[in-house]
């Protein structure tokens, strides 16, 4: 049976009209006769219903999705089969997709980006909590409804696998696919987080980070190419938002946010402290670009050879990598801000204001009705503007709350104008008096010792306490008050020299020595210490300490990477100076003819613009010599010679064969060339195609009869026995 308007599926859902078609299913507007409401009905396309595995997966995942109910999810009401049609009944959402919205607006404002992303991640988080991985998060699957809600749709089913052969042209986009999905490996909620990161990138910059002319080239880029920093396209992107995007899109899933909650927390914080440095991306383990450890991948791969990814997902031990666990715990517990911030500060107010705003919207709707230019679009725009207003409101509330002591901790709200005058307070606890003074003075802060007293943690002469917290932003020339230890009391331990060790080894060494408090490491660039290795500690090696002393390791992030400038279109000399200006080296410079590029202009570079590379990396360029002067050749004497001969003559002259037509001729022997165009002896450009007219002999001499077409059934021809 095929779907026609007016048919009723499952004796309940009346199909009204087709509203869209996706890769795997057609979507209809319908009516639920039992509950008397409009719904969307998704009907699986026929070619997929023949694939039993696929249908089973479609049903089981749709059923799982049907259990999810949340305002940020397009809810699935029912799944069923009727007369051979597999269908899914869903909430009917009127609105536009995020893709369309981005296309209309080009780029979204940072606050709008975060507002949309928080809602998107909230919906996604609900699914993750139920062990449902979306696997196909992209702006096309995010709907902004008429009433301004952001809803995630197409849970689970989008990536149900089929063994049907499909063309890559027909398949969905791989622009948002995580490296592990491209690799066909294990995917989990962090794969969705990667796709969220790519979606964030697109909202901020208006373009996807990895693009290419084929599915394969895009997939390979996800696997191999480092993502471009969004700030290269949008220089005014807040630092924290950029870091959030970079953390989401790490190649190694272990380095991304572990779940949507962590991501939402950072996004909320980014709203109030856009330039804060609070997004921690763990450094790469190895200096080279190995993405997932091979052995681990193999284990994962083996575990997943059974086709059903879902069931086994649960049993996986996410805590296997102790290092990252500790890192995460340390990071967030250390700040101790989430609870109050989250529960009281944001959610309630945000939601309440959001509702108010919904009412506002209704008013707007009734006033304007359906008149005006593209009213739907206008509405959505207006709504999103209103969302931004709500966020600003929230910031005000937050600030008031903070000053009223509602929040234990919160980053200082910044005033744009004083931005340049502000500096971040460095950590000086554990440093000697001199070191501390120097560290503070370097960033333009003053140093004052308030008192000296005994410390259970820090040796005499080192700072045991700083009155302004590290990481806080303060005006330049502010004095930071500190307490300096006059003597260390308690059982003393010497701080071991762990420099040059890997972070893990250093941590165990410190633990062995008896240190109980090993803080979240600080990650710094270093030219001399390999990425992932320890540069030093505070307090420094050989300092006296006790088991309660907090040891902060400084870990190398590797050499500071340089950004390759985009050189295409620059003049030769400018391009070379641009390379040198970045601290890079000019590689080979090639000069070639190029028809499309004016002489002297760069048309290719050996390393793509925007790529991050080590200082001193050579960047080669190709410079145009202008269009190649066309070589002229003469058409060789091809007449009165066999067609085959003529072909060879033409091809050795650098010409190609154009149309070959046949004519009767009394004077030229059958099979020989009668004439050509352009004619013999003409001077033409190399590569010109020359048409030939070939003789069929005198008229009437054609003795060839068309052989009857042998009708060969596509089966056995010669089942003769032969030996191997």
């Amino acid at each position, binding site marked *: 049976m095929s779907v026609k308007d007016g048919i009723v599926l499952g004796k309940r859902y009346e199909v009204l009209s087709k509203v869209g078609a996706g890769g795997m299913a057609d979507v209809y507007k319908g009516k639920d006769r039992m509950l008397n409401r409009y719904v969307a009905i998704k009907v699986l396309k026929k070619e997929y219903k023949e694939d039993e595995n696929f249908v089973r997966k479609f049903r089981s995942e749709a059923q799982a999705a049907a259990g999810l109910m949340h305002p940020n999810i397009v809810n699935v009401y029912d799944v069923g089969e009727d007369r051979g049609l597999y269908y899914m009944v869903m909430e009917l959402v009127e609105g536009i997709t995020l893709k369309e919205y981005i296309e209309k607006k080009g780029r979204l404002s940072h606050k709008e980006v975060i507002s949309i992303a928080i809602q998107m991640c909230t919906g996604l988080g609900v699914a993750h909590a139920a062990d449902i991985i979306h696997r196909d998060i992209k702006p096309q699957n995010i709907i902004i409804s008429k009433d301004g809600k952001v809803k995630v749709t197409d849970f689970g089913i989008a990536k149900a696998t089929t063994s049907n052969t499909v*063309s890559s042209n027909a398949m969905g986009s791989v622009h948002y696919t995580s490296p592990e999905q491209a690799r066909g490996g294990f995917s989990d909620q962090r794969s969705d987080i990667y796709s969220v990161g790519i979606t964030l990138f697109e909202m901020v910059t208006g373009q996807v980070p990895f693009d290419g002319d084929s599915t394969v080239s895009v997939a390979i880029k996800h696997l191999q190419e480092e993502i471009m920093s969004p700030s290269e396209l949008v220089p005014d992107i807040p630092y924290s938002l950029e870091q959030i995007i970079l953390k989401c899109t790490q190649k190694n899933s272990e380095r991304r946010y572990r779940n949507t909650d962590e991501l939402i927390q950072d996004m909320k914080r980014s709203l109030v402290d856009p330039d804060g440095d609070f997004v921690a991306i763990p450094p790469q383990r190895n200096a080279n670009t190995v993405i997932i450890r091979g052995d681990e991948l193999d284990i994962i791969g083996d575990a997943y050879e059974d086709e059903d990814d879902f069931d086994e997902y649960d049993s996986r031990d996410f805590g296997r990598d102790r290092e990252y666990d500790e890192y995460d715990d340390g990071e967030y517990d250390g700040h101790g801000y989430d609870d109050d911030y989250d529960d009281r500060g944001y959610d309630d107010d945000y939601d309440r204001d959001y509702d108010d705003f919904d009412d506002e919207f209704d008013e707007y709707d009734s006033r304007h009705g359906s008149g005006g230019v593209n009213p739907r679009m206008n509405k959505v725009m207006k709504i999103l503007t209103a969302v931004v207003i709500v966020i600003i409101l929230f910031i005000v509330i937050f600030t008031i709350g903070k000053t009223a002591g509602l929040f234990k901790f919160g980053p200082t709200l910044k005033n744009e104008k004083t931005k340049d005058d502000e500096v971040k307070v460095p950590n000086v606890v554990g440093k000697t008096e001199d070191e501390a003074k120097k560290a503070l003075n370097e960033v333009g802060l003053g140093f004052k010792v308030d008192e000296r007293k005994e410390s259970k943690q820090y040796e005499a002469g080192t700072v045991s306490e700083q009155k302004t917290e590290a990481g806080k932003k303060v005006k330049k020339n502010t004095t930071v008050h500190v307490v300096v230890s006059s003597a260390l009391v308690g059982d003393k331990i010497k701080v071991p020299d762990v420099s040059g060790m890997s972070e893990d080894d250093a941590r165990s060494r410190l633990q062995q020595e008896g240190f109980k408090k090993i803080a979240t490491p600080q990650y710094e660039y270093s030219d001399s210490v390999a990425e992932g290795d320890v540069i030093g500690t505070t307090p420094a090696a050989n300092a006296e300490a006790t088991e309660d002393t907090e040891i902060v390791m400084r870990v190398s992030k590797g050499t500071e990477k340089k950004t390759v400038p985009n050189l295409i279109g620059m003049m030769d000399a400018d391009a070379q100076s641009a390379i040198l200006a970045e601290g890079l080296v000019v590689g080979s410079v090639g000069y070639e003819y190029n028809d499309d590029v004016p002489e002297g202009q760069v048309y290719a570079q050996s390393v793509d613009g925007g790529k991050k590379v080590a200082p001193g990396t050579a960047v080669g360029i190709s410079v145009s010599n202008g269009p190649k002067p066309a070589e002229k050749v003469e058409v060789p004497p091809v007449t009165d010679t066999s067609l085959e001969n003529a072909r060879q003559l033409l091809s050795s002259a650098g010409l190609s064969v154009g149309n070959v037509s046949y004519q009767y001729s009394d004077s030229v022997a059958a099979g020989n060339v009668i004439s050509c165009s352009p004619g013999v002896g003409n001077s033409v450009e190399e590569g010109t195609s020359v048409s030939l007219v070939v003789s069929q002999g005198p008229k009437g001499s054609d003795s060839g009869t068309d052989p009857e077409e042998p009708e060969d059934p596509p089966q056995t021809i010669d089942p003769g026995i032969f030996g191997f």
Partner: protein
Amino acid sequence: MKIYAMTDVGRKREVNQDYVYVTDKPIGPFPNLLAVADGMGGHKAGDFASKYTVGVLREELENTPLNKPEEILRNVVSIANDKLIEAASADIKLEGMGTTLVVATVVGNTLYFANVGDSRLYLINEKIRQISKDHSLVEEMVRLGGIKAEEAKNHPDKNIITRAIGVKEGVEADIYEYRLKKGDMILMCTDGLSNMVEDEDMFDIVRGSRDIVEAVQMLIEKANSNGGRDNIGVVMAVPLADEVSV
């Protein structure tokens, strides 16, 4: 040349969208013709696409003005592509259809063939060798070094092909020319065989058969007993002694 071809719906599908065609009689300038095609698209569209494409090839071969086998192959495949696109745009029920194609001929002691998609041509002699290169997302990623061969084996996107007849204008076929040696046997098949039966097992089956009829039947049986998840199309050909170089 001894030729045998067979296609089977498999165990899981209702419709057979694979199509095979062989003849040892001349078609146009070709002394013989071997073809396998794996159609894709909706209910009727997939089997239409594979059959129609081979039909166009036969017709165009009869009328080709060209005489170099590789040029002929390139030309007729390109025409078949245009015609299939045209057919798809003329009938809404056929929209989105396409097909893979391996088409081959043996002229003297030389095998010429064209490939588009992920159907395969193997040569079997002392060992089994896949000569055609798959135009599939996963295989191309392996070739470009994006993923490892082991990762490709059970990749969920194995079914995605990057080239097909009837999907996009200007499709390019890979054209191969190969001098046949004594003992070479030609095996062409759709992914319904190559995804279900390991290359080594194909080799053992062919080697253990009395003749190509038995070999083809056993290959299909093996694909089915391994699950038969897709349609299976198989063509085998063995050149006669005067068709190989010594």
